């Protein structure tokens, strides 16, 4: 903010949500959406590191073709628990429950979510579900793969399947409650003047996500309940010997779990749609189309699930239809990507850390999305089904897409959440390390898969070793890339430079209140009179220079 250096030394506001009350009770019984978001932040970070620990063991084990580190059984448990921890307890709640929880009310000018107590309940439900799953992890682990496929999970596995299934079942309700809360909030609590088409894209993305959460999650809950009953009481829903069908489990499982991918990526797309206009100083190109694309992805995403099952013996005709529908999802995804790039065109781009993550997202999501088409194509899928190609593809979407979005969002809003700036240069270096480490980890896996290395095997032929060594080396770099933000963001929350209300500056309503915000968010309910991402008609942003000569003042922390 050198251009506005005349401003006095910034100090934190006297009253804010972090110092409104003190003590452990004030946190565990809070109904403030911002504090609940921080509770979620701590919980999902905990699971991220548990999942990351398992990932490191997997990668270390695969360093050598015959795998000295773990036994075959233990290896099965490691990749299963990596998947369960990362998907159900980190990726699905990460952006919605942390950033969405914190910022949706702020962005629409509301004091809180529509149901603050249900919001707190959702965190407790998450914790109870997490406790069951943690119990499963320490009482023998889980070896079914995160997909819990029958009959392995219901009949043959001797690992702790039941507590894990119960844990995932329970956690699903936390997701439903969050989605419900968001939908009602967005419908009923928008500030005066905050029309539907003035909503930030982050809110639109969460609206679409909430629909998926509410309509999809009950299906996984009932599916896991059926599998649990089959395992515990010997009922035969999925057991052919008793008239059941294991492929039915896969249908029901993927009816939720494919849309669950969109629960992970849509909110990340929402974050990116905030970052790109802010750091390109330009209105989002094709606002209506980007919003509609979110809804289209949510809806079409429900119609593609059997592309996970092309080689399971399902009907060829059904596979044809689902392959076509899978290709349809590429359209709204491409609409978004092209609109982001068009937003960049002619923009006044700065390379602050959140924008670096946005660029990372663009490239990695592009690769992840396009390789998805290889897998959605019936012919090529025969060759690469269940190989490392799939592993690489979905890590490009989930890690390269969702986690890049999450970290970009955390950096972008950290000054609002804590009132303090993170160290900009260190953060840029960390983003770069992360990007390099990520690609080194997962790009060789595309090659491995194409060459035919199956996923979930604990040994492999020696000719694949060079790619596996690259991948393990990349994972080590990636680990540093994750540890650095965790350390400096925590440090910055206490000792960082005071950020001020709107350090970037950005146009959203959340930047109109103090940092960190009041418990009630706004002193008076704001009245919205401007269009979204409009930098030109916002004298309050201190960007008059943009309007007059098109040259933006330097911004960020440097």
């Amino acid at each position: 903010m050198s251009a506005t250096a005349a401003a006095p030394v910034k100090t934190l506001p006297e009253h804010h949500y972090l110092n409104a009350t003190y003590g452990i009770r004030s946190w565990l019984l809070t109904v403030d959406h911002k504090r609940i978001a921080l509770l979620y932040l701590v919980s999902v970070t905990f699971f991220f590191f548990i999942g990351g620990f398992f990932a490191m063991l997997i990668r270390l084990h695969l360093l050598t073709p015959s795998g000295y580190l773990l036994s075959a059984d233990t290896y099965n448990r490691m990749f299963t628990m990596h998947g369960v921890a990362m998907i159900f307890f980190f990726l699905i709640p990460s952006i919605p429950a942390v950033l969405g929880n914190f910022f949706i009310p702020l962005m629409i000018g509301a004091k809180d979510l529509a149901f603050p107590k249900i919001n707190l309940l959702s965190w407790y439900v998450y914790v109870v579900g997490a406790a069951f799953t943690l119990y499963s992890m320490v009482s023998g682990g889980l070896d079914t793969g995160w997909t819990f496929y029958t009959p392995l999970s219901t009949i043959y596995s001797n690992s702790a399947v039941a507590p894990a299934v119960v844990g995932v079942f329970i956690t699903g309700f936390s997701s439903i409650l969050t989605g419900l809360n968001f939908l009602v909030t967005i419908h009923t609590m928008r500030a005066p003047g905050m029309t539907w088409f003035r909503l930030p894209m982050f809110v639109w993305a969460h609206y679409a996500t909430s629909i998926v959460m509410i309509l999809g999650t009950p299906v996984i809950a009932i599916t896991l309940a059926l599998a649990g009953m089959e395992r515990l009481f010997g009922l035969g829903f999925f057991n052919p010997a008793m008239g059941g069908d294991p492929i039915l489990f896969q249908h029901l499982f993927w009816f939720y779990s494919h849309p669950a991918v969109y629960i992970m990526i849509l909110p990340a797309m929402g974050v990116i749609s905030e970052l790109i206009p802010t750091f390109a100083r330009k209105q989002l190109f094709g606002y209506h189309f980007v919003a509609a694309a979110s809804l289209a992805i949510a809806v079409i995403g429900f119609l593609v699930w059997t592309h996970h099952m092309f080689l399971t013996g399902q009907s060829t005709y059904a596979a044809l239809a689902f392959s076509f529908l899978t290709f349809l999802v590429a359209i709204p995804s491409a609409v978004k990507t092209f609109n982001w790039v068009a937003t960049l065109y002619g923009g006044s781009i700065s390379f602050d850390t959140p924008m670096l993550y946005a660029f990372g997202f663009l490239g990695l999501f592009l690769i992840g999305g396009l390789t998805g088409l290889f897998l959605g194509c019936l012919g090529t899928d025969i060759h690469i089904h269940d190989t490392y190609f799939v592993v690489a593809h979905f890590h490009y979407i989930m890690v390269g897409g969702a986690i890049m979005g999450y970290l970009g969002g955390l950096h972008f809003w950290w000054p609002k959440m804590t009132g303090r700036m993170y160290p900009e240069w260190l953060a840029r270096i960390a983003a770069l390390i992360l990007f390099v480490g990520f690609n080194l980890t997962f790009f060789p896996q595309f090659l491995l898969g194409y060459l035919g290395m199956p996923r979930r095997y604990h040994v492999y032929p020696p000719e694949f070793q060079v790619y596996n060594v690259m991948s393990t080396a990349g994972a080590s770099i990636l680990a540093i890339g994750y540890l650095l933000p965790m350390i400096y963001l925590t440090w910055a929350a206490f000792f960082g430079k005071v950020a001020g209300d709107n350090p970037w500056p950005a146009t959203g309503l959340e930047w109109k209140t103090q940092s960190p915000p009041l418990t009630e968010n706004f002193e008076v309910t704001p009245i919205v009179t401007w269009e979204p991402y409009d930098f030109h008609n916002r004298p309050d942003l201190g960007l008059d220079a943009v309007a007059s000569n098109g040259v933006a003042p330097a911004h960020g922390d440097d």
Partner: protein
Amino acid sequence: MSEQEHSEHIVPPSTYLAIILTLLVLTGTTVGAAFVNLGRFNIVVALAIATVKATLVVLFFMHAKYSPKRTKLIILAGIFWLALLLGMTLSDYITRVDYRGVRFPISQVTQQLPAQRG
């Protein structure tokens, strides 16, 4: 959103009584039908009765009949998504080559394919 939209609709006890009696009669019908072998219609009859019962519960006990339009829309969306789940899953089952009513393990289904083409 008017105030009336939120006001509770008063339902006379006689309605509830009629519904619970209907549900009990239908439960009896389900049990009775279980003793009659209707062939492939066994499951159809059981599911039809269950659907009627569920509809009655949603309409009267859950007050969907007296709810604002938005609530009805949400319920319909749920039913629509359930129809997607069932319908599109069936698109697999009814187009498999063993659709003639005989249950094949998948391995036999794939062996059947060349014979069918020939």
